[in-house]
């Protein structure tokens, strides 16, 4: 009898062991994920061409699209863009400037972010790269959500306007782990309302949430930073993450946390090939 129990226990341990190793050994294939992700939306909304996804909710509501066209006669982000440009071109007290921290002087590089940094083994978004540049030159970090950071991001993103998004997940265990963590964050339910990001932005994409149209997750990151009429000013992708988390009654992560870095990494990777269209304007 005892022998049988021992044998059973042994079998169950073996089973657990194999499950755990199976999860760790599940091949991560970002390329295939991206094809499936984009394919899902293209199949579901055959009338919307791939590049049009950067316009988010405007593909699904004519009245919102009409209002947007009128708003864009004077883009509401214009002042932020001009401020960002002058801040970007202003020298630091030590004589260097933002351009010295980036390849190609910071012009036309926004499509490559978020980027995996092999030195630290972490994902670096453009906002975090700007803060690194400031710290390296003896300045304080900027708030990652709004204000001057959004202005600088607006300018840097505008110099990449129309360039295809090109986020790379290198074959590095830490990069793949960050990608997997971002993917898990996107599909995990959280908060009192028990929503995942995908609940609204994949399952219910294009549908109404009260008066608003839910933007599909595809193309979402391309228009950031953006001027949101609800906010009345500019905000970054991180600001939106925090807003979404609050809306489902969960505790938001820190703006520079690994969770949001990885989520931005995964989401932007899904948009590879779509044109950068930031800064944007949303209701």
């Amino acid at each position, binding site marked *: 009898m005892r022998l049988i129990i021992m044998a059973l226990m042994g079998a169950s341990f073996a089973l657990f062991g194999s499950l755990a190793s199976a999860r760790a050994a599940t091949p991560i294939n970002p390329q295939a994920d991206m094809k499936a992700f984009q394919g899902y939306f293209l199949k579901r909304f055959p009338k919307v061409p791939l590049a049009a996804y950067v316009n988010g909710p405007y593909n699904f509501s004519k009245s919102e699209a009409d209002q947007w066209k009128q708003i864009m*006669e*004077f883009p509401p982000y214009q002042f932020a863009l001009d401020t960002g440009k002058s801040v970007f071109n202003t020298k630091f007290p030590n004589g260097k400037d933002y351009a010295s921290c980036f390849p190609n002087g910071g012009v036309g590089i926004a499509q490559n972010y978020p980027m995996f940094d092999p030195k630290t083994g972490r994902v670096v978004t453009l906002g975090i790269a700007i803060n690194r540049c400031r710290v390296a030159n003896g300045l304080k970090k900027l708030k990652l959500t709004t204000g001057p950071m959004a202005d600088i991001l607006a300018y840097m993103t505008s110099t990449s306007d129309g360039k295809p998004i090109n986020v790379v997940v290198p074959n590095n265990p830490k990069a793949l782990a960050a990608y997997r963590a971002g993917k898990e964050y996107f599909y995990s339910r959280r908060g009192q309302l028990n929503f995942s990001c995908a609940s609204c932005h994949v399952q219910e994409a294009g549908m109404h949430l009260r008066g608003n149209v839910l933007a599909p997750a595809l193309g979402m990151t391309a228009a950031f930073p953006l001027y949101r009429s609800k906010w009345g000013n500019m905000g970054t992708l991180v600001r939106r993450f925090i807003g979404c988390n609050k809306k489902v009654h969960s505790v938001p992560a820190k703006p520079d946390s690994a969770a949001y870095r990885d989520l931005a990494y995964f989401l932007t990777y899904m948009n590879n090939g779509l044109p950068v269209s930031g800064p944007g304007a949303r209701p």
Partner: protein
Amino acid sequence: MAHQILIHASTASGMTTVEALVKHPMDSGFVKDKAGKIIPPHYIEVIEFTHAGKVVLTGFWGPAVSKNPFIKFSFKGGKSGDPISVSWVDNKGEKASVSSNIM
């Protein structure tokens, strides 16, 4: 830079439509900052649009107008290439103006 105005005007069948976006804080004087101090009033008092030297619209604005106000109006006459200009004065005596041509 500090005082920026975006303007564009277009003409169709004898009517000219002018749109302008004015960068201004438009502080009403009733709002407190994070430290609890009242933000002093700072708003545009008079805004004036001229077409070829003739005033076509004068607006007497005040603290009730929003931050970075947008204005749109139309007038009879005007043709493509005519000069159009806008200027404002605020309660602190600051001024700004910009001129453009009808498209």
